């Protein structure tokens, strides 16, 4: 008797690329001019945009400085840590 092989079609939920935020947190030591320069260097932001994020960090305690694919976000967080900024990766809600 022939064996019947039932092939089940499985539906894999592929990990949809959830956007990730790169967040920079305030600290009382880093100079505002230094933070602005780091944002310009790491993200290539204009001085105006870099200052906007710096002021958010300074006044609100944190700023989402970049949002996008996880791998790139991790690389940015690593660069920011290299400049000694307090930075974390978080899922974009």
């Amino acid at each position: 008797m022939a064996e019947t092989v039932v092939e089940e079609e499985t539906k894999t939920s592929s990990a949809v690329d959830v956007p990730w935020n790169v967040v920079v947190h305030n600290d009382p030591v880093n100079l505002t001019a230094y933070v602005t320069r780091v944002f310009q260097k790491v993200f290539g932001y204009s001085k105006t945009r870099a200052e906007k994020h710096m002021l958010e960090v300074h006044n609100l305690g944190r700023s989402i400085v970049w949002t996008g694919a996880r791998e790139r976000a991790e690389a940015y967080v690593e660069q920011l840590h290299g400049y000694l900024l307090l930075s974390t990766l978080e899922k974009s809600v």
Partner: protein
Amino acid sequence: MITELLRRIGPSADPGNNQRARDRLYSPPTNDPAEANFAEDWQEYVEPELARLFQSAIEVIEGDLKKMHADPVTGEATVSIPSDHLEAWIHGLNQARLVLTERHKLQDEDFDVETLPAGDPRAFLLLQLRIYAQLQWLFLRYLEGH
């Protein structure tokens, strides 16, 4: 005085075994408990790279300081900093300020103190932090073309 403060950049930037200072230099890359594996990998693979990066900035500074020479007549010391070393100086000064702040558990309000009572042990520390910040600011201005 300034010469001595410059020579202290390297030792001041070294967190040694001070946990607060180490935690500041190697802060977590995530606050999400669900990302524990990522945080572990970070400690294993990224932190050693960061340590090498931090050390290389200090080595550049100490290399420049070794070439510092004092005028035998006036006693004034001169240190020449190549412009391509400024990034390392900015980084090293920043690292020293962060480590000193954590090592001595300084709070926001400590930085607002205008004058300290004579003999207050924080006086020299605050002077050191202010001079490092001033140098950092000057170097940043230079790089911006001012």
